[in-house]
Each structure stands twice: as C-alpha cells, then as structure tokens.
C-alpha cells in the first residue's frame, strides 16, 4: 500500500488523508490500520483531560514549544463534541496552538467525537497509529473536557495529565470517583488565581487515600499558569521523570498491554455488532421490535435471546466481514 510508505516518510497530505479514511470508517481503513500497526509503539502518548476552560489547549501549546526545542516531532489530536442534533461540530482547540501551524515538525488534527462517549472519538485509537507510524515522537490527545466520563483516555495514553483549576468546585469534584483515578500527573493551572494553594492541598489529601502498597508510583502535582508560560518547564520535567519511573517499574508495559487488550475487545464487539446487524437486520427490524415491546407483547431479553438462537441455528457466519 503506497499510502503506508508516504505516511512513514512523514508526508503531511498522506497523514491527513489517512486520518480521514479512518475517521469516516471507509472500507480500506482496517487494512490501513493493520499495515501501520507493525510500525507503531515508539511514540510517547500523553492524554490531556480536565474540565472545559481549565486550560488544556493552552498547556498543550506551551508543551509543544518545549518539545520542539528538544528536537522532538509533535502531533496533537484535539477532540471536541459533535452536536447530537445536527451531527456538526465546531472544532476550536487548535485556535490556541496556531503559532505552531507553519512548523513542519508539528501536526495538529481536530476530531469531532461523532457520538462516541468517553471523551474521545471512536477512531482515535487508529488515528494514533497513523501519527505513531509517521514518526511523531510525542503525541498529545486532548479530550473533550466534560469531566467524569472521560475514562477512555486512560486506555489510549501512556501518561494522563489531569488539568484542574481553582474556583470551579474542583475541590469536591476531585473527591469523586472517576476523576482522580485517571490522572497520572496533576496540574493545577491558573495558579495565580485565589484558591490554587487550597486546591493543591485538597488534591494531595485525596491522593493520600491510596491503599498502602497498591501503587508505588507517586503522582506529581504541578502548579502552572499556562497563559503566562509559568511552571511549564517543571511540568515537562515531571512528565519525563514519570515516564522513566513507569518504564523502570514495568507499569508502562503493563499499560500498553492493557491498551491492546481493550482495543481487541473493542474491535470484537464492533465486529459482532456489525455481523448481527447484517445477519438479523437489527436496524431494519428495530422499529417492529420496539413496537412489540411497547405493546407488551414481548420482553427485551427473551426477544434478543430468540434472535441470537435463530442466528446461531441458521448461520455458520462466513460471508460477512
């Protein structure tokens, strides 16, 4: 496949097109992703999450500058929500990163979530393969930023940066399950705002809850002011130190194995879903099924079990993909 060679040479047009093929679930996307797969596993993948307005994009912008100074090629996947009504989206994260627009060592791509939950888009994992195979050393994934459901980022990243800011009720939000667990490095941005020190203490307090012996890695907390460029050097050092630490302790390998496991499960369930849809025409029959349920003529589990029985009896699935 010619496109694969072009991607590996770092051809920007090829990379951009490949991402579109994958995003649009074009028929050739699977073969493309698999052809790239052997050439992946080299990039450091940093997930950036946190509530809207916390300063994720500005932080990424500042980190790009430092990464470039050390000669690293950088890619960014910036995810924004699709409208559940029109399917359209306004993708505005790169607004804060436009000073890097003409730097050939930086590739920024905005992605709409296209209805996928978990803070990222369904195709994000395969888009990562394109950027990894294209030779970007550091890849940032910036999530939508709606907080407590952004768990998918853990499956996709080597290190998750959780961006918090004072004065948004983050003190209590931080206590809730699902937010604090996903962060590897905690960033308290807008550190010059009132409440920043208090937030830091709260975060330290919550982090100290960890069960003894459960996790020997100490989660760093870094205070930054992204707009003024303060604390970014410290943040980058914390990322580098954390990376060495998890590489040494085996946690990085463990994470990457977990990512592959989740990916396989994802592909499997999508494929099964697809197969069932083709074989028993789920989409077509859905209105009728719904109708029988509404009239209480059937029950959900029984109805689906019956369909699956029929499917198993009738087919030794070989025609569909």
């Amino acid at each position, binding site marked *: 496949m010619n496109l694969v060679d072009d991607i590996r040479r770092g051809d920007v047009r090829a990379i*951009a097109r490949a991402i579109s093929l994958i*995003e649009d679930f074009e028929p050739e996307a699977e073969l493309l992703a698999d052809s790239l797969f052997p050439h992946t596993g080299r990039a450091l993948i940093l997930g950036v999450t946190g509530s809207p307005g916390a300063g994720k994009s500005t932080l990424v912008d500042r980190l790009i500058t430092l990464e470039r100074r050390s000669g690293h090629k950088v890619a960014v996947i910036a995810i924004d929500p699709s409208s559940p009504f029109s*399917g*359209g*989206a306004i993708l*505005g994260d790169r607004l804060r990163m436009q000073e890097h*627009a003409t730097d050939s060592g930086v590739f920024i791509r905005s992605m709409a979530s*296209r209805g996928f939950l978990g803070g990222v888009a369904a195709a994000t994992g395969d888009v990562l393969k394109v950027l990894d195979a294209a030779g970007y050393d550091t890849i940032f994934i910036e999530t939508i930023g709606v907080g407590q459901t952004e768990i998918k980022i853990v499956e996709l990243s080597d290190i998750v940066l959780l961006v918090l800011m004072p004065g948004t009720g983050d003190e209590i939000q931080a206590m809730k399950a699902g937010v604090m667990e996903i962060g590897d490095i905690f960033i308290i941005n807008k550190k010059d705002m009132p409440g920043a020190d208090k937030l830091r203490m709260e975060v330290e307090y919550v982090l100290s809850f960890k069960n003894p012996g459960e996790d020997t890695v100490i989660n760093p907390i870094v205070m930054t002011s992204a707009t003024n460029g303060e604390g970014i050097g410290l943040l980058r050092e914390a990322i580098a130190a954390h990376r060495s630490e998890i590489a040494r302790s085996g946690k990085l390998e463990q994470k990457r194995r977990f990512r592959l496991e989740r990916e396989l499960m994802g592909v499997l369930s999508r494929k099964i879903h697809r197969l069932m849809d083709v074989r028993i025409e789920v989409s077509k029959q859905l209105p009728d099924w719904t109708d029988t349920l509404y009239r209480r003529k059937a029950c959900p589990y029984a109805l689906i079990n019956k369909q699956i029985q029929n499917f198993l009896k009738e087919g030794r699935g070989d025609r569909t993909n």
Partner: protein
Amino acid sequence: MPSKKTRILIAKPGLDGHDRGAKFIARALRDEGYEVIYTGIRQSPEAIVQTAIQEDVDFVGLSLLSGAHNELFPRVVDLLKENGAEEIKVIGGGIIPEEDIPSLKEKGVQAVFGPGTSTEQIVEFLEHESGR
C-alpha cells in the same frame, strides 16, 4: 459503514479583528451538520493552508473586512496549489466590493458571499460542490 462528514476551515486572514461574521457562519454550518475548524483572527495565508492540509478539509472559508482580500484570497489559493492541495476549494466572505468579485473568481476563489447572504445560499453551494 462509511460516514463521510464534510469538513470546512473558517479562517480570518489579514489584520482586522472583526470575527462576528466568521463565528456566525461557523455556528450556522455546525447546525447544518458540518465539521467546522475555527482558527480565529489574524492568520497568515501560510498558516491557513497548513491547517487546511492537516485537517484534510473540503473547503476553506475566508472572512475579511479590512480590504486586503485581493492579495490574501488568491495567495491562499496559490499556496494550496503549491502544496499539492488544489482540490481544497476556497470561498470568501466579508466586505468585498462587487467589482472585485470577477477577478477573485478568475484567480481561483470559487465563490464570494457578501453581507446579506443567507445560510441556505452558502449551504446550497457547499452541497453542490461536494456532490451531495
């Protein structure tokens, strides 16, 4: 299950900071189901073209009110061509005098939408051009 979305970059070249029109269009197109990449004010033609290529957009919509459209719009068209991305279509909007439109079109700007253009007109154009 291919699910192609039309992507459009809305960008403001030049030095004027009046982005109401650009933002209005961005929102209107979002509501029509487009994926709109918005990069804000004061973008150089080089930055616009690199963004359009990385984002793999179908269209670039340029908004300008300062009067520099005769230089900046064709420059974007030329740079796209130089970078092998001539299939990305360029459209313009803002305060563009009627008499400038023919020469802009000659230089490769596909359409110019002035004040008073309805969202429907723009969408109709985009749908037609993207073959939908």
